[in-house]
């Protein structure tokens, strides 16, 4: 039994943290937050050069062939830095989709481009408000053409291709379609979200050329499996964010004085931060389990992923909210960086399905585990 990262993985963490401190300081986040760009292209380039986008891609496809334990270390640090890049869309979702159900040809074509960061992939499931279900999919695929509208698509404005969930008349009634976005059948509109430091889009498909990814009529199951895998990686990013928010709150509280003493000496603040620490710690430990299940392709992955996801949603949103609160009025200003976490925490918490969705998935997985 060894429930900890290896020394090499810890070294990777140190390097990643140092790299991001240098290359993704608050000014870089702020540049995207305040500007019109949908991501920081320079940071993306550097991250790709570090090989982070290539982490789990096998060497035969131009990747580093490392394990998911390395990838979650990077995910945590990206969350801590609130990095304004399409890493989650391209790495946790598009790359994972290709790895899971891509054909040899598809892998050969796309994985090297994803590994090098030249291509940015994304994932298109939502079609507006409410919880997606297989019966309310309106995007269709037939004869290699996709029609419909997906909104929101994270990083949809900058992505090279999207993995689109479309209705199918076979099997589980859905299929995954790989659609290149720079084609005449595709139009995109930028969509503003509450996190200005990450780009989103609405994508209209009008007889867009598409390629089936995985089996026809196996798309809904593939999508759920994909979300399980992504959920672990999102969860780590959220835990990194939660930890950063707690640290920011703590540092501010220590230095802020009221009524002649540090506000960090008041139980109202101490117990608030202790509560954040507790939630963060439980979420992190569940993320360990998720990382192990993902890395070992365990049959417990669905349960582990939902557990990690629910815990990290709760921890990160709570930490981000109470970090602002601890900062008082200053936390509410644009000038302070508390907003990075406040925006990002909520964005990540709905990006691949809400707390309620994952609570339900968790109990479903628990029922299946208990029935097995």
């Amino acid at each position, binding site marked *: 039994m060894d429930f900890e990262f290896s020394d090499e993985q810890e070294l990777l963490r140190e390097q990643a943290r140092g790299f991001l401190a240098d290359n993704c300081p608050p000014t870089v986040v702020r540049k995207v937050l305040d500007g019109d760009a949908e991501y920081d292209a320079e940071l993306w380039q550097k991250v790709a050069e570090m090989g982070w986008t290539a982490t789990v891609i096998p060497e035969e496809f131009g990747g580093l062939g490392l394990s998911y334990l390395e990838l979650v270390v990077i995910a945590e640090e990206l969350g801590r830095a609130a990095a304004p890049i399409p890493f989650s869309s391209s790495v946790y979702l598009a790359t994972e989709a290709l790895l899971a159900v891509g054909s040899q040809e598809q892998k050969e074509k796309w994985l090297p481009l994803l590994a090098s960061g030249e291509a940015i992939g994304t994932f298109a499931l939502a079609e507006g408000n*409410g919880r997606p279900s297989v019966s309310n999919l309106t995007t269709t695929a037939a004869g290699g053409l996709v029609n419909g509208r997906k909104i929101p698509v994270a990083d949809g404005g900058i992505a090279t291709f999207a993995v689109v969930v479309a209705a199918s008349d076979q099997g589980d009634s859905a299929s995954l379609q790989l659609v290149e976005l720079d084609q005449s059948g595709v139009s995109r509109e930028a969509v503003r979200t*509450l996190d200005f430091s990450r780009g989103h889009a609405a994508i209209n498909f009008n007889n867009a050329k598409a390629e089936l990814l995985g089996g026809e009529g196996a798309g809904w199951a593939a999508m759920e499996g994909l979300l399980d895998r992504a959920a672990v990686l999102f969860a780590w990013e959220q835990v990194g964010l939660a930890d950063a928010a707690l640290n920011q709150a703590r540092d501010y509280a220590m230095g802020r004085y009221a009524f002649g003493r540090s506000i960090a000496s008041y139980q109202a603040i101490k117990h608030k931060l202790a509560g954040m620490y507790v939630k963060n710690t439980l979420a992190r430990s569940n993320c360990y389990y998720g990382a192990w299940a993902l890395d070992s392709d365990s049959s417990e992955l669905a349960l582990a992923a939902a557990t990690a996801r629910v815990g990290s949603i709760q921890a990160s949103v709570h930490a981000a909210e109470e970090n602002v609160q601890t900062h008082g009025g200053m936390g509410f200003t644009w000038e302070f960086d508390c907003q990075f976490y406040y925006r990002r925490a*909520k964005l990540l918490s709905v990006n691949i399905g809400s707390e309620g969705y994952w609570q339900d998935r968790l109990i479903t997985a628990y029922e299946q585990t208990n029935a097995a």
Partner: protein
Amino acid sequence: MDFNDNKEEAAFRAEAAAWLKANAPSEEELAGMDELAAAKMWQKRKYDAGWACIRWDKEFGGRGANAIQQVIWNQEEAKYKVPAGFFVIGQGMAAPTLMTWGKPEHHERYLPKLASGEEIWCQLFSEPAGGSDLAALRTKAERDGDDWIINGQKIWTSGAHYSDYGILVVRTDPNVPKHKGLSYFFLDMKSPGVEIKPIKQLTGGANFNEVYFTDVRIPDSQRLGEVGQGWQVALTTLMNERAAIGGGGAGVNVEMAYRIANEVMIDDKPAIADSAVRAKLANWYVQESGLRFTGYRSMTAMSRGEIPGPENSIGKLVGAPKTQEMASFCMDLLEMSGAIWDENLSKEAGLVQLTYMGAPGGRIAGGTDEIMANIIAERVLGMPQEPRMDKGMPFSEVPTGSN
């Protein structure tokens, strides 16, 4: 116990309703006017007819009405889309302070123009290093003949840029304990040396300002209360602030969440059929309803001549976190679209995101959640204060950390 108006109340309501029906501005009348001009126009019309600041004495421009009449007036006025805002601080906080601490010449000169909306006032209390410890303010005033010279910085001043006057608390003696070295003034916001900078908030808006003072002169005649008595005067202002804070049906409430839950689907059924959604809405309904009826109890107390006490702090303490939770939950109901903040795509959803981004402000402004809980514990339940490390210590020697 009766929800209905008694005879006297009904008569007053009828009178108010009739006047409003005849005089409330129509949409056409307001079209094209800027908000401030519209608000001033409406305020002046009310003033001329005796419907402005109706609880004030008639000599100050009011109607001499009672608390319950005020509530009735508010209810009736709320039926019309009339311009609002701008006058709350001046009429609700500065004016009661002037009434209590000002001289007759202050009353004559300032109150009618406050009532008529001709002059707008703002509040200059908070400072960057102060926060919850309001009395730890550092902006200093030094005597120079008949004037005082002000240097320092205030923060969180709403309306500074369109205000004519401001109420101001400053430190006139740093060598006595913090509450004892303060004095209270009002000043002309156009005075030389006053510089106003808007503060951009999480929402992207800028409803507040920083106000910098560089050798600003205020005549001593604009002092309220004695030198060193500023904290006591400020308490008058702050007590009125608390009374002004309502139970508040912010934009995101059960009604809106219910509407969203009827529109979006969970497992191919409207989300409102989902029992987890129902349980959450039920809990929030209990809070909203509880605040509403707590408000009715306060109104009844006021109508019996009682003064609303610190128990009104619960409105903000419950309402502000509830608003944050509900906005967050409404985004969850929208699922992946929950993050979209784009009025063109979904008007309702845009309001949800705006509310979520604004919610932290609600949990801080006018006293943080933590300060509100202290107030309830100390002033309602009679529990002792925390030990005060700065008690009796000259302000200049109080530890301030890195600030």
